[in-house]
């Protein structure tokens, strides 16, 4: 039972990341009809926004105190982060909560990156083939990766979670179990965050007029255009939103997996599979498939299952994708008639 709960949480956690990336991918595909291979790179950019915010907050002054000596006899250096010097205790809190804080930076930054990308590159590819879209965004992903590598180096950069959330929560006690089931706080936060974000996006599309128009545009772009609505502008904004979501998903993920320049590519392939399983262009499908595949993956990596079918944990997601594509190509929740062959 304990192992079961842990695996369930692990799966939901991983699924959260898949869902948030896949959600953006599927939105972009549903609105603009573009297959964006650079979406993983946006996730990676977001992670490095968190790293950059951390680094900026950590800028420090070094003063030499001649009265105090280090054990080696040289004058002691006293380092104080600038924020702490300026804002006192509040500065320390800021430094502690650099990851959640970086969301505030990541949203406008990633929105800007997304809009620039759409206006600067993607819009020239609406009418090109999917293959060409894949290729150009693949090239862009390489470029973004390499730029990040040039600035931050090739080594993974860990970013710590706030101290208050660094420990583990006794999940078992909440559920009234005798034995303690401990799970890292930050992962629980990430899980809640990803559910919240996915819910927000779906609610935004479902319950606001703006979102309704976007959905109408996804169904029949031309008619919405005839009604005098500038649907293109809304789709561009949707691209920006998708970029922002991928970005904050990446920023929040840094305490779980250290930021490295190729993390986007690692997630990209899996999120594509998630999009396909959920149904191309279906937001709810992507979220559902993200969580489902995450949970499925963590369950089959339990030893009991691995002993039964060796190697299953390595291939399960792809296997599911293959079966879905062959049996039900429009995915779990794809609309009938959209990308069915």
């Amino acid at each position, binding site marked *: 039972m304990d192992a079961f709960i842990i695996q369930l949480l692990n799966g939901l956690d991983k699924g959260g990341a898949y869902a948030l990336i896949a959600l953006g991918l599927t939105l972009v595909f549903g609105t603009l009809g573009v297959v964006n291979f650079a979406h993983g790179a946006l996730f990676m950019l977001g992670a490095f926004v968190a790293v950059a915010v951390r680094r900026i907050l950590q800028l420090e002054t070094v003063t030499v105190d001649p009265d105090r000596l280090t054990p080696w006899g040289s004058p002691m250096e006293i380092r104080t982060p600038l924020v702490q010097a300026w804002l006192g205790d509040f500065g320390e809190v800021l430094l502690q909560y650099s990851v959640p804080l970086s969301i505030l930076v990541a949203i406008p930054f990633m929105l800007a990156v997304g809009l620039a990308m759409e206006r600067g590159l993607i819009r020239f590819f609406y009418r090109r083939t999917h293959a060409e879209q894949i290729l150009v965004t693949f*090239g862009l992903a390489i470029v973004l990766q390499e730029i990040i590598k040039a600035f931050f180096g090739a080594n993974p950069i860990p970013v710590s979670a706030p101290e208050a959330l660094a420990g583990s929560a006794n999940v078992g006690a909440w559920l009234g179990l005798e034995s303690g089931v401990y799970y890292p706080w930050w992962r629980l936060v990430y899980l809640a965050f990803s559910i919240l974000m996915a819910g927000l996006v779906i609610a935004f599309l479902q319950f606001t007029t703006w979102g309704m128009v976007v959905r109408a545009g996804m169904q029949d772009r031309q008619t919405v255009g005839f009604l005098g609505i500038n649907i293109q502008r809304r789709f561009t904004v949707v691209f920006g939103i998708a970029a922002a979501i991928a970005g904050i998903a990446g920023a929040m993920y840094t305490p779980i997996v250290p930021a490295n320049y190729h993390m986007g590519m690692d997630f990209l392939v899996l999120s594509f*599979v998630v999009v396909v399983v959920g149904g191309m262009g279906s937001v709810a499908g992507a979220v559902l498939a993200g969580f489902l595949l995450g949970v499925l993956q963590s369950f089959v990596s339990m030893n009991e299952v691995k002993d039964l079918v060796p190697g299953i944990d*390595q291939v399960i997601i792809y296997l599911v994708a293959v079966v879905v594509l062959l049996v039900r190509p429009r995915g779990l929740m794809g609309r009938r008639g959209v990308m069915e062959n």
Partner: protein
Amino acid sequence: MQMTTLRQDFLFLALFAIAVLTMPIWLDPLGANYPDLLQKFAIYGIFAIGFNILFGLTGYLSFGHAAFLGVGSYAAVWAFKLFSMNVVPALLLAMIVAGLFSAAIGYICLRRAGIYFSILTLAFAQMSYNLAYSVLTPITNGETGLQLSLQDARILDRTFGIDATGGIPFPNFFGLTMGGYGGFYFCAVLLIVCFFIALRIDRSPFGMMLRAIKSNQNRMAYTGFNTRPYAMTAFIISGMYAGLAGALLAATDPLAGAERMQWTASGEVVLMTILGGAGTLVGPIVGAGVIKYFENIFSAYNEGRLHAIFSFLPDGLENFFVTVTTPFVGEGWHLTLGIAFMLVVIFLPGGLMEGVRRIRSLFSRRKSKPEQAELAPAE
């Protein structure tokens, strides 16, 4: 498509053969004349030709072609271990295994077209890669990679009395060792043979069918052709090309690792083909050459080298240019590759070969009446 006669084709082939075989001479000024790199040119040329038979002709974009390359490598190393250090059984085994493997994968993947096909092939390649790393370790030797050892059976070698005393023997072709220039010429001859086959496929009715699949699959079906067997044949042929390339990689350096199957490796052959020009005969080989050249030569550039290149400029300018170009060479050569690739896809969808054709038509237009512009294939 312009009509060509058999004589023109043979002339074309002869020119190609001369260009390939004289590579050590004309690549010397470019600093690329060393056997390892020349071998890579030839091997990845084969890989890209094979990929082009599938992607360039039928339009099916496979994102998992590296799986066949990897399978070919493993099969070749096993042939070295079990049968003989002669490359002939290794190449044959690799092509058979890769062919069977691609038949199995193609049978499933070709049920879907477009992006779904890409994702299916990607999924299969990733599965192979993950399995090669984990459960299949007895066959693939996992992370270490499959290596030769002195205790290998080498049945054929032993029965014919060719015994390995003093170290592990190197793969050879009836005595011609696969290292150095010998290896290069062997690969080069195979490249020419492969090119010839691709040329014949391109000119054949079968090639016409493949083009028909690309331009309009439905229309082809309406005229009474079953498209699946044609696409399937193209897929298997291209898988066998990849297997051959993998076997040659193993022959010139007898080691097979799973990283050859990773999806970034599949992406690389896509880059090569597009960069050179998908659907053209020479394009993919040019693309493979350019990328391997950049990978090996450009990545070795450093600041000192750049200073030497820009030394003809005044000091201030020299430093400026060196600072500007440093991020693009050495470690950063991938950045150059990414940018070059994007530019090609955006401005030259036909790849470098289209660039060549545009320049050529620019010149010929001045002399003679412009020919009717070639129609771009309807996508």
